[in-house]
């Protein structure tokens, strides 16, 4: 139950192609996170899967069945909306049982199912309240409960955590993951928060301008982004990109950049213009000169709890690097020496943006 297949799915609104030839399979029981910047078509894609909007081309299949012409209420899905969209005139109980009443279930069964979901989401105490009398977190749980109560095999969640404070967001993120593991349902979770995506997903589908540019595990999305866009979108602070030229010299393959020669290891590469991608943790940062290290000046120190990041300038290039923990943190204005780890460096074709 709940396997989703998209085949060449397209959707245009007026002249604009909002979804462009999407192909994607979400396996049964998988938690897939749709990640992308604002306006890239994530909500539209969920609505297309749910049947809330018409599509211009291609197919949506749920459990192998073509959903063309099937009502949203008959697709076997539950949905959580970004705005929650709780029925304001109904109590929490009324919200939870609305779908079951529409389905014409017997009263006893409705009551049993509503109570079960309410217990699972700890909503017992607020069942008689109207949504306007709930906290943000409670509203969010009612919205999830409303999607769960139908026992649908597929759950679509459209940025359910986006308008909560950071603390609550973390709690509820864990709760969503726990719910997924407990119920075994297929979930498609939309977000533009990459931390949320990395922490939650079985697989992440990264969207850009109505297309899916990469579908992979969080680990691989982070370590082996297919394109410059994915590399830049994932990771906070963001990846450092340095333009350069691949060449081969006496010491092997290297990239010539403004920062100097950065040696590469691994298999030989084709010469050409590239963008060299180095994440902040791919540098060893030292206060003493080392052979081959890049000299840089610290502009700003950004302590983010566990890690501290240094914003530095090296040869007119601005970089963000992680300061080694357990050592003295350099002050702004200090000079540091950076040694990039060649094994971690990502190379992108400067023309196409694809990883080489």
């Amino acid at each position, binding site marked *: 139950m709940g396997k989703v297949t998209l085949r060449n799915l397209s959707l245009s609104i007026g002249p604009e192609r909002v979804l462009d030839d999407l192909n994607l399979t979400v396996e049964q029981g998988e938690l897939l996170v749709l990640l992308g910047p604002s306006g890239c078509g994530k909500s539209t894609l969920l609505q297309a899967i*749910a049947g*809330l909007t018409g599509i211009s081309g291609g197919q949506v299949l749920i459990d192998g069945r073509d959903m063309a012409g099937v009502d*949203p*209420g008959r697709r076997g899905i539950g949905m959580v*909306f970004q705005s929650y969209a709780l029925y*304001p005139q109904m109590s929490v109980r009324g919200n939870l049982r*609305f779908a079951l009443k529409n389905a014409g279930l017997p009263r006893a069964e409705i009551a049993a199912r509503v109570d079960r979901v309410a217990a699972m989401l700890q909503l017992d105490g607020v069942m008689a309240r109207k949504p*306007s009398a709930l906290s943000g977190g409670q509203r969010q749980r009612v919205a999830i409960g409303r999607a769960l109560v*139908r026992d649908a095999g597929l759950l679509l969640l459209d940025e359910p955590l986006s308008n909560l404070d950071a603390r609550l967001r973390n709690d509820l993120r864990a709760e969503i993951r726990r719910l997924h593991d407990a119920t075994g349902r297929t979930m498609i979770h939309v977000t533009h928060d990459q931390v949320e995506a990395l922490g939650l997903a079985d697989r992440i589908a990264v969207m850009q301008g109505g297309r899916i540019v990469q579908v992979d595990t969080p680990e691989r999305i982070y370590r082996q982004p297919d394109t410059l866009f994915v590399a830049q979108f994932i990771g906070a602070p963001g990846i450092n990109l340095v333009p350069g030229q691949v060449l081969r010299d006496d010491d092997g393959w290297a990239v010539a950049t403004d920062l100097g020669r950065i040696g590469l290891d691994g298999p030989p590469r084709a010469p050409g213009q590239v963008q060299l991608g180095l994440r902040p943790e791919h540098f060893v940062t030292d206060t003493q000169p080392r052979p081959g290290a890049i000299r840089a000046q610290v502009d700003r120190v950004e302590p983010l709890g566990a890690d501290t990041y240094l914003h530095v300038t090296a040869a007119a290039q601005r970089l963000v690097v992680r300061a080694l923990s357990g050592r003295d943190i350099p002050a702004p204005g200090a000079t540091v020496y950076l040694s990039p780890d060649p094994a971690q460096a990502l190379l992108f074709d400067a023309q196409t943006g694809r990883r080489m």
Partner: protein
Amino acid sequence: MIIVEHPESHAGRGWRLGRVVVHVTLAVVCLFYLLPLYVMVVTALKPMAEIRAGHLLALPAAPTLAPWAAAWSTACTGLSCDGLAPGFWNSVRILVPSVLLSVAIASLNGYVLAFWRMRGSQVLFAVLIFGAFIPYQVLLYPMVMLLRGLGIYGDLTGLVLVHVLLGLPILTLLFRNFFAGLPPDLIHAARIDGAGFWGVFLRVLMPLSAPVCAVALMLQVTGIWNDFLFGIVFARPETYPMTVQLNNIVNATQGVRLYNVDMAATLLTGLVPLMVYVVAGRLFLRGLLSGAVRG
């Protein structure tokens, strides 16, 4: 009214002067509207002898409700002496079905126009806006022809039809705009929850529509109750609404003018719209306050 006073500003005197001007103006305007009402009320409570004595503004020396009773049940038009009562019941019989039908149809129309994209809905919308602003006089003759053709000219049914038809454009716009302003996700959620065309309308949207229903109710009740033009054109003496009846009583030419009865009759006729403002107005406010649509 909010008047902000800046402590450091040297315009303090100017502000105070401005406030005096505003208050005096308001008081004059109030007086202008309330004085005739006051005269009507006291006149309607005076016996004729007192009125002839001529103190227009004096309080009644021996207040009496007799003029009210006369206005209700025995005042004479040129033809009969049954008072306003028959007109009142005619008006009720016109008002209730007209209001219910027009609000029911208009809310449904507004719902369809707001959410269910269909061919020609844009054109229909434009026509509706146009329809809301057509002067009624232009429609009189075609309407007479239409009702004749249908064989209900002079019937209450015909009058109801006229009121419903003419109320639809503006009410439909009202409902459409209200529905179109609701978050679309609310309707999406209802559709996912398996609500169909009627389920979305009756169970999700209408319960949220108290404010707009109150507005529609006020518009329609006052409009239809106060209507004189259609009443006199489309009704017969037996089916005259209260306004036409009032006109005929006040303008009856035989005998002495009973000012107290005329005033009482006028006040009685105005009572219904007044009550609707009080009741629906409160409903309207409550609807607005309990809104919190973005659950």
